């Protein structure tokens, strides 16, 4: 059965919900939101802590409240939602194949598509920890799901590897639920998560954070019995003789997130080796005309407000595309990472809108810095640059009129 839609949004987390809402508000009432789980909301449902929407709504929501607000806004629009629906294929001609118990196998021809599939967690396999393979090893997000949705405590004596935000949040959560968190171990010399999470999730509960340390062996036959942690040198190699055994029955991994782009690849979307997500312009359009992307499928953001911001852009621009079709003389210029910049998003500028840049520093600089964007030669001052806190700068379209050369973004000492 072939259906038709103006805009099809894939994924109903914060990016997808926002994109669907804004597609509808910008002239695409025939918008379809497709979600593979049984409920809308994506990862927000299990993020029961507060801190969501401070910038966007000036309110301090928990994840479920934030989701419910967006969903109730969405229910007031004409947007149609398919839940329990798994998208299995997207073509570059924007034909989507999806499977669901309710609708069977469906094909949808979309005028434009918004990719909002989010990201997934890196696992033990991605970082290759030696040792046995007992029960009791979880990624932080899986543990979060078990505790907050399934009401199940995954362990009593916990070690957390990696200081990403989900790991920090889970250190507090498990402590409140009565588990003992022996410590958080971070291979880098600086924490991965936001500073405020170090304070309110670790310091508040006297949970130690050990920097420049990693787990070098997992022990235990049936169940985890302990881990060996080692100090690492500047090249991140374990230092001989620094090994220490930490008793635990559970190891949580908070060792990074990877944008989930299997579908993007099928659609022929060009991916960035830096972000792991689609290369997009400031309108969030990918290299395939009419296919847009937003949120953590594009690049892993620190806070939901940034995710939603890209959702607003992708949804509105996808609606415009569905109405007016492609821009004929679109010749975007590249945006490239310069001095002390690990990645910059978006990666292209198509002269269609103001340019909002999200920038991740390569190395921490704990002093005032200048973010230089050239052309046009804008210099923006920030009090510091840290790899764990994305910098956001906005360059007005008027300053970029007629830009032909690649735009270089650098973080320099002030």
């Amino acid at each position: 059965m072939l259906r038709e839609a103006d805009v099809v949004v894939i994924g109903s987390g914060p990016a997808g919900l926002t994109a669907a809402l804004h597609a509808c508000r910008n002239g695409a009432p025939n918008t379809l939101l497709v979600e593979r789980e049984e409920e809308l909301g994506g990862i927000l449902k299990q993020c029961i802590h507060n801190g969501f929407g401070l910038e966007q709504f000036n309110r301090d929501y928990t994840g479920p409240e934030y989701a419910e607000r967006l969903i109730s806004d969405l229910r007031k629009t004409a947007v149609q939602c398919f839940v329990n629906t798994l998208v299995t294929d997207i073509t570059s001609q924007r034909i989507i194949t999806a499977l669901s118990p309710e609708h069977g196998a469906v094909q949808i021809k979309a005028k434009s598509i918004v990719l909002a599939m989010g990201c997934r967690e890196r696992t033990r396999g991605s970082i290759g920890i030696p040792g046995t393979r007992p029960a009791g090893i979880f990624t932080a997000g899986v543990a979060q799901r078990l505790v907050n949705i399934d009401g199940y405590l995954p362990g009593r004596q916990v070690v957390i590897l990696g200081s990403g935000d989900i790991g920090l949040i889970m250190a507090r959560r498990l402590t409140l639920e009565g588990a003992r968190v022996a410590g958080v171990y971070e291979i880098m010399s600086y924490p991965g998560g936001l500073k405020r999470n170090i304070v309110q999730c670790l310091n508040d509960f006297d949970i130690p954070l050990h920097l420049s340390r990693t787990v070098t062996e997992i022990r235990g036959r049936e169940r985890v019995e302990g881990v060996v942690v080692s100090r690492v040198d500047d090249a991140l190699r374990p230092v001989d003789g620094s090994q220490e055994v930490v008793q635990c029955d559970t190891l949580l991994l908070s060792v990074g997130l990877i944008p989930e782009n299997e579908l993007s690849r099928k659609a022929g979307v060009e991916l960035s080796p830096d972000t792991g997500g689609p290369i997009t312009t400031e309108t969030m359009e990918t290299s395939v005309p009419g296919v847009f992307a937003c949120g953590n499928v594009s690049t892993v953001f620190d806070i939901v407000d940034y995710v939603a911001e890209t959702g607003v852009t992708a949804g509105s621009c996808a609606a415009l595309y569905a109405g007016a079709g492609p821009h004929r003389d679109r010749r975007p210029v590249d945006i490239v990472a310069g001095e002390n910049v690990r990645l910059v998003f978006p990666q292209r500028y198509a002269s269609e809108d103001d340019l909002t840049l999200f920038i991740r520093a390569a190395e921490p600089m704990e002093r005032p810095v200048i973010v230089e964007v050239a052309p046009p030669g804008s210099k923006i001052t920030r009090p510091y640059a840290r790899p764990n806190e994305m910098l956001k700068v906005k360059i007005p379209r008027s300053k970029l009129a007629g830009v032909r050369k690649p735009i270089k973004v650098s973080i320099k000492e002030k």
Partner: protein
Amino acid sequence: MPTEKRHFVCVVCPIGCEMDVVHDGVEIISMEGNRCDKSEEFVRQELIEPMRILTTTVRIRGARWPVVPVRTDRSVPRRLFTGIIRQLRGITLQAPVKMLDVVAGDVLATGANVIATRTMPRE
């Protein structure tokens, strides 16, 4: 009164301003590093009694999931977290529950209500 220098990280918003504060145990004598007034209020409160929003879950019967997420509707003293959680362990809700429904009123005489943070229909 003797003064002390202490480093604070504001947790009011994700910016997380870092501040060097000189105080006498009760009042701020000087502070630098904050970008807005909220941080000053935060530090003043930290000196008296650290206050936080508590988020956790409560058991529920008759719903799709066995637990429903909850929060305190205002900040409560952090030292009372364990006591509030213990009180909430004794509660089992019956579906349906609507977002913002009061799960426990005036917990441990803090003046804060514990409220549901999502709607859970009866299944």
